[in-house]
């Protein structure tokens, strides 16, 4: 009985081993049925694996994280550091892009008038402690900048060179209370003196009392002898309010300056100007309002019935 059982066991073992060897042979010969069986198993398992993945996701990396705790911490620190560095780079890039835009506009302005300019970066916005509106640029006499030269922004007049050093210069902004510039109104050619008031609005005093100004008039720099301190034809601002009080010796107005002084990043110092006056060529183009569509309705009266 025992012999029979042992024989049966051996026979079963031999059958199973032969079957497994047969399977190995078939698989190594590349029979498609077996590969299909493995694919079928994966097809059956995949819903379970997906469900397991969803359920176990919070715990999945637990052991791995414990094992690599030190390494993970170092990695986090490194990634944080990289992130901060990239953020700084991005901020610098944004800053550079903004400066590039400003520079392009300045060069457009200077190029239209034929000015020879030296570009400079604003390195200090100055301090309001002394109530002076002064900035420092990173270019000085070594680059050819001299005192009393016109400084341009992307929109027009920014100020005038106040002091020059070998590698830097102080610029008195058009908003500075001590700032004075001779201006003319585009078109009518009336002249006046514009004075800084500490903010973006400046005051204009016309010289000729017989002429009049109106809101929206554009002011351009009148220019100085030998183009210093001011070159002619540079946009300064536009009139926002006119003072018509009786008894005034000359008409005065409030002018909104074109330059946005709070965002000055790049400026250009005019070191040379053409002999010819650019005239009104630098007047900024006014934005054209989008015309509203008009709707025309035709009414046709219906005939009234008569009794």
């Amino acid at each position, binding site marked *: 009985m025992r012999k029979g059982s042992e024989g049966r066991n051996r026979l079963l073992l031999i059958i199973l081993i032969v079957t*497994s060897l047969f*399977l190995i042979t078939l*698989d190594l010969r590349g029979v498609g049925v077996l590969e299909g069986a493995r694919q079928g198993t994966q097809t059956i398992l995949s819903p379970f694996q997906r469900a397991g993945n969803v359920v176990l996701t919070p715990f999945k990396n637990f*052991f791995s994280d414990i094992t690599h705790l030190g390494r993970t911490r170092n990695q986090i620190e490194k990634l944080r550091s990289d992130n901060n560095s990239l953020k700084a780079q991005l901020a610098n890039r944004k800053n550079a892009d903004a400066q590039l835009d400003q520079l392009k506009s300045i060069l457009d302005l200077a190029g239209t008038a034929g000015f020879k300019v030296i570009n400079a970066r604003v390195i200090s916005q100055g301090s309001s402690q002394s109530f002076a509106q002064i900035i420092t640029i990173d270019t000085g006499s070594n680059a050819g900048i001299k005192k009393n030269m016109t400084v341009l922004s992307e929109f027009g007049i920014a100020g005038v060179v106040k002091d020059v050093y070998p590698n830097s210069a102080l610029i008195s902004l058009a908003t500075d209370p001590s700032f004075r510039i001779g201006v003319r109104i585009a078109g009518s050619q009336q002249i006046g003196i514009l004075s800084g008031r500490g903010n973006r609005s400046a005051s204009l005093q016309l010289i000729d009392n017989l002429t009049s100004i109106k809101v929206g008039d554009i002011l351009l720099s009148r220019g100085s002898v030998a183009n210093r301190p001011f070159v002619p034809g540079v946009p300064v601002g536009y009139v926002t309010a006119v003072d018509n009080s009786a008894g005034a010796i000359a008409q005065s107005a409030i002018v909104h300056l074109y330059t946005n002084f709070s965002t000055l990043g790049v400026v250009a110092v005019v070191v040379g100007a053409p002999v010819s006056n650019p005239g009104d060529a630098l007047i900024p183009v006014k934005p054209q309002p989008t015309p509203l569509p008009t709707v025309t309705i035709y009414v046709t009266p219906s005939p009234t019935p008569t009794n």
Partner: protein
Amino acid sequence: MIFVVQEAVVNQFRLPGGGFSLLLIFTLMWAILSSQEIAAIGGFIAGLLMDLSPSSSGPIGQWTLLMIAACYAVSYMGSGNESLSGNPLGLTFFITSAVFFIEIAYLVTGALLGVQSSSFGQILITLFGISIWTLVITPILLPLFSRLHAFAFNTRSAI
């Protein structure tokens, strides 16, 4: 069922050292508690499932062959040996040793069949990792698997 748990749950964890095979532990334990005939058939079924596993790298039949031989041998050594089947500690070490040797046999047969293997260092880490995991997991699963076996065969061999 155990195969699905292995594939859907255990394989989801990134266990250090290669983790453990629930199916391997279960089949070996089953084989120790069963007759050689049942052990061989159990080994065949378990091996075939392991071969069909998408994570298996060897040809279909390799695990089948190994598991038939291993389960038969384990059952042969375990049958009538009360010091082994009745002793949880001995059983745990026996299963761990069996897993260790089965893995080595898998590597050797894989090399003979032309299966690409990892570096020697990695093989050593995996071998010892699997052995340690088996040593840890087996005592936890032992009562459950033993009761399952007893339930299936209506015996009183529960440990």
